Every structure is written in C-alpha cells, then in structure tokens.
C-alpha cells in the first residue's frame, strides 16, 4: 500500500463518517420499527387503528366491567373514554393501582373480533394520578360529544 499519509487519513475519515452514517441509519430504523402509537377507544371503534400492529389504548376502566377467569390471572375488562368502549383481555398480575373507574393504559393488539389482547397494562403510581394518555383520551371524547359530563 503506497498511500501517502495524507491520503490514508482522508480514507480513514471517510470510513469513519460512513460508519457514523451507518450507525445513524441503524438507530433511525430501530426507532421507526419500535414506535408504539396511541389511540383512544373512539378511534378504535371507528376502525382507525392498524391491524396486526401493536398500539396503546387509554381511558378509564369501566365500573363493573372487571371479570376474572377461573385461573385467577386472566382478566376481562372494558376501557372507556366515556363515548366508546373497547373490551380488553389480559393474562397476568395487574399493577397495584388498577381499579374500576380509574385511569389505565394498555398495550397490545386488537383482533378481528374487536377484542383488545393486552400484553401490558400500565396504571401509574399515584391514587389521584391519571396516565397522560388516558386523560387525553377522555378529553378528546368530551370535545367530540359536548353533552357528556367528564367524570371526576
């Protein structure tokens, strides 16, 4: 290799930049394929959500909707934004603050039968705290149908 030191340096800077470019591409690609979008029950009811792709849904756990399976771990409940509802099934131990009438966010997929199969249920750390997504879902439902009263 009879490259001069200066040329060698240029080649190396070129390789370095190409590698950084590659890293940036990998990062952006990973970012794009791992983004999880959030939808409200109203959007789900309107069929605005993609099938076969996981997403998040938020709202309130409808009062009286929690039903447990015989194994004690499978739970059926309904998420509502006060306008529309979405039935959810989840298998596993629920977080401490999962309660009827409280805010909840679930991540999972919706099947053809309209049942939302949750892989993860999030309810956060404070009795009075509403997950921001859940609050946003309630707010947008409220704006769409002004006659409904926002639950306290």
């Amino acid at each position, binding site marked *: 290799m009879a490259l001069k030191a200066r040329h060698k340096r240029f080649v190396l800077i070129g390789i370095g930049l190409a590698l950084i470019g590659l890293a940036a591409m990998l990062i952006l690609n990973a970012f794009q394929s791992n*983004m999880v979008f959030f939808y409200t029950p109203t959007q789900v009811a309107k069929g605005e959500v993609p099938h076969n792709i996981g997403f*998040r849904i938020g709202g309130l756990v409808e009062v009286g909707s929690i039903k447990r399976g015989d194994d*004690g771990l499978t739970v059926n409940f309904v998420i509502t934004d006060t306008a529309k509802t979405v039935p959810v099934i989840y298998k596993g131990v629920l977080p401490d603050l999962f309660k009827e009438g409280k805010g909840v966010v679930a991540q999972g997929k919706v099947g053809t039968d309209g049942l939302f199969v949750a892989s993860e249920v999030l309810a956060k750390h404070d009795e009075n705290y509403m997950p921001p997504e859940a609050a946003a879902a309630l707010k947008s439902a409220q704006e769409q149908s002004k006659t409904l009263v926002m639950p306290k």
Partner: protein
Amino acid sequence: MIPEIGHFSLILALLVSLILGSFPIIGAARGNAVWMGLAKPLASVQFILIAFAFLCLVYAFAFMDYSVLYVANNSNSKLPLQFRIAAVWGGHEGSLLLWSLILSIWTVAVSLFSKHLPDDMRARILGVMGLISVGFLLFMLMASNPFERLIPAALDGRDLNPLLQDPGMIFHPPMLYMGYVGFSVAFAFSIAALLGGQLDAAWARWSRPWTILAWIFLTVGIMAGSNWAYYELGWGGWWFWDAVENASFMPWLVGTALIHSLAVTEKRGSFKAWTVLLAICAFSLSLLGTFLVRSGVLTSVHAFATDPRRGIFILAFLVIVIGGSLLLFAWRASTVGRGGKFDVVSRESFLLANNVLLAVAAMSVLLGTLYPLFLDALNLGKISVGPPYFDAVFAPLMAPAIFLMGVGPIARWKDASLPGMAMRLRWAFGISLATAVILPLMLGNFTPMIGLGLFLAFWVFASSAELVYQRLAKSDLPLMGRIKANSRSWWGMVIAHLGIAVFVLGLTIVKGFESEIAVKMLPGDVAHLAGYDFTFDGVVDHKGPNYEASHGQIHVTKNGVLRTILEPEKRLYTVTNMPMTEAGISPHLIHDLYASLGEPLEGGAWSVRIYHKPMVEWVWFGCLMMAFGGFLALTDKRYRLKRRAPSKAANSSKAAKI
C-alpha cells in the same frame, strides 16, 4: 419563624452568588487581583447560607411544621423520622434546594483544593459555578419556594409518596445529584479555559480528578436507583429505559467519554476542543435531566411539579446555559489550540472511536427520550418508544466499544502496531470466543445475543489479564513491589474495565436465563420454577407505622431441602390510600429468588409472581467495581503531589510512562 429565616438565608445566598458570578470573572479579565480574590471567601459564605437554609427545611420536616406548604405536601406525622428527613428531597422544591446545596458544596470544595491553580483560572471557575447557582436560587425563590407558608396550617401532612418510603430514597437522590452537579465543575473548568484561552496538559490534570469524582457519584447513584427499582416495584426488572432513567444515563455516557478524552488531553495534548465540548454536553445533559424529571414534562413518580411557569423558567435557563456555552465554544474553541499528531493505529484513535461510540449512544438515548415529547408538544400524536428500541440500538453500539476496551489499553500512544497487538491478544481472543460458544451450550441455551454478551465479557477479562500479566512479568521486584510499580490510576482503569465485564456477564446471564411465572396460589399450593418448589404458606395481617400490610410467606425447597423463605408484602398506605408491593427477595451470588404478591383473590388465594434471576447481583456489583476503579484513579499519587508542589514543568517525562 424558622422557615422565614431559611427563606431569608436563601435570598442572601442569591445576593452572594450574584457577586460570585460577576466580580471574579470580570476581575480575571482585567487582571484585578482583589476582585479575583473575592471568589474563595464568597464560595464559603454561599455554602454556609444554603446549608443553613437546608437545615431550616430539615428542621421543619423533623418537627412536623405543617404550616409550611411543602412539608404538608410531602410528610405526615406517622412517617418515621428517617423518612421525614429524606422527604426533604421527596418533592420538587426540596430537590432543588438539595441541588443548590450540593452545587455550593462542590464550589467550596473547588475553592479549597485549588491552591495550585493560577489565580485567574480559579476565579473564572468559581465565578461560572456562581452563575449556575444564581440560576437555581432565582428559580427557587421565584417559582419553587420550599418555605412557602400554608395558611391556615394543615392538621397533618399528605404523606410522602409510598414508593419513596424506602432506604433507597435516603441515598439514591443525593448520590445522583452529587454526580449531576459534579459535572458542573468540569463544565466550569471548560468555560474558564475558553474564557482564558488556555488549555494545556496541566488544565486537563487539574480537571480530571473532579470529573472522575462526579462520575463515581453518578455511577453509584444510577446503580442505587436501579437496585431500588428492582426490589421496590415488584416486577423483577432493574432497568426500564424509563425517561427518568435515561435522563441519568445520558450524562453518564457522555461523562464516561469525557474521562477518556481528558486522559488523552492530559497525556498527549490532543482532543482539546472535543474535551471541552464533552464537558459542556455532560453538564447540559445533567441540566436537561433535572428539567425532564422536575418540570412535570414526564408525568411519572419522579415528576413532582405540574406548574408550567417552572417549565418555562427551566427551559429559558437551559437555553441560556447550553446555548451560551456552545456559542462561547464556537467563538473561542480555536484559541485552545490543536493537539499532537497521532497515527491511525494508536491509542488515541482507539480512544477516539470509544468516544464517538459513547456519544452516538448518548444521542440515541436522547432521540428515544425527547422525540415522543416533541411530537406530543406539537400535537402530532402520542407515541412511546419502549425498551425494544433501546435494546436494538445499544447492542450494536456497545459491542465495538467494549471490544475496544481490550485493545486500547495495550496499544501504544501515537502509533501502535496492529500485527503486534494481534499477537499479544490472540490467546485472549481464542479463550473468549471458545467460552462464548461452549458455556451457553453447557447451560443449554445458545442465542446470538448470549454468545455476544459472553464473548465481550470474557474478552475484557482475558485481555485485561494479558495486560496485567505483561505489566507484572517484566520486573524482578517481589509481587507487591510490581503491583505498586504501576500507578493507581492504571489499576483503577483495569478494575473499572473489569467492572464492565462483570456487568456485561451479569446482564447476559440474567437476560438469557431468567424465568418467571404468575400463578394463583391458595395457602399450601406449590409452584415450580427453575428446579425449585415454592410453597405458599398464606398471609398474615400486620400494621406498620403508616400502613397496613398483608405479610406473605413462601418457603422454597429444592429436592425437599429448605433453601430459603421469601416474605413478600402487600401494603396499603393509609394516608394516601395507595397500595404498594414489597418484593420478597433472597439475593445470592449465583441467582436471586424473587416473589411478589399481586392481589387477593377469592377464598384466601393470592396472585403471586415468582422470578428466578441468575447472576442479577453481578450487574450492580459491576457498577460498584467501576466506581471503585474511579476511586483508585482519584487517589493517584500525581494528583496529591501536584497539590503540594505546583511545579508545572516536571510532569512531561512522568506522563509518558503511563
């Protein structure tokens, strides 16, 4: 009365910091020795005033003064004393006061241990730290006064968030803040260098121990937080890529790059502008972390404030500090000079590659943390980026960085020989490759990620062993003498790198071989996991000082022999009406057995989660090793010698050795 005295003390501290942030810097520009000389006494006065204010707040908490709004919001008469005191930093206002207190501690420390610094440099450094202090004190007094009165006074407090009622709360935030705020010293050194146009090997040697000290605190702080999450959240996880964790991890990544870049600046005089830029970034990210966690942007347990005024203030503060320092950098970076030349294959280029990888990793975390917030702020929809993104990004970025940890330390400065290094490392490479294939097959689970993780861990072990062997073999001294012949900072590097290997090993094994089950258990029921039998003995009710608990007991046997008893608990904190899970953990070098109670079901049954976590403790032990390595480097002889004899000329010959 005491809260008012504390408030007044803060106002005085603001005045002092205003003088500290202006006169010494102007004095340094004009060569006015008297103005420069103000810096040192002012740093002490500022510390005394802020510490006094802090004690006033501690007093209000300890003696349950519920006429102070902040105390009423974050404490309760039933809260035990140690948590009442830790509750001082359990909310937004008190955390800021802790931030300011720690900043004033660092400022005073710099003023005391800077006798060897030129007067103008010291004046500028202390002045810059004073300016940062002005920002925080102003913020506190204008928008987050911890001493605000509540009239009429509350009968009792609303209690500290139960998640925070844990010994972790006593250590984790102060440690983390010591790290965050510690980077302000490196930042101040950099700004001083830009202002003075002077950046040489001596500058790097002076700022290195401060940076390492901050990095140690940050490492331990993050480790404590991770450990806390592990046993307090009851999910068995120890890192969630939660925005709040990311906020502390970004400064760590950049700070790690900074430590390495400073080494090059000290030994070889290269990377000067880059070092300055990293110092600015490390502190900016620390500020951003404070902003993210404290402004209510991220609504989570860590976000205490939901007052938009505060957000705007911090945002403006961030723009001034980051924008201002970057502008100064753009304007003055050319004055700090260029470094020595180095060949493509040299320790410099390996360290450069390490720096770029760490910086890119920090950028990727920044993207994953901020982009969803931007979208949300611009009303473009709500998205979340979870652990899959970070996992996908981190493995390819960190793998080459960790590989370089084996190569860099044996490479020579300036120019190294690739074939020679390959010869030296061939055994290390062979051993680690063989381990990476054979060990997972023996354990019965081979995946590419497990193979990669084991390869990297054993690569660092083996190449470090080679490095140490070569260093110790070339001598006739007795073993202790040979060990002592190498500097403490060199040993510190070896141990910190081994800490990474221990960390990666723990991470790989726990990710690859952990198992869990969630079951419904009646008293007497047995669950099986990883060869162990977990028998649920039922729960008994008991009362804590401020909670009611269902105390469960699970005894664990293997082949009929009792191994351990796990005692998970479900608590209901009565003041806040919040349920809490306390996991029952049996920690062990080889594996943790972990159980947590879900919820009561009909007929005395409970839903129970049981985890088997092989080698998870190694993750935190690795972090402690890194911190210990940093500590060794900090106690290196040359930092102590220079303090006594500030002769700047005599270091170049010594430096070449390391």
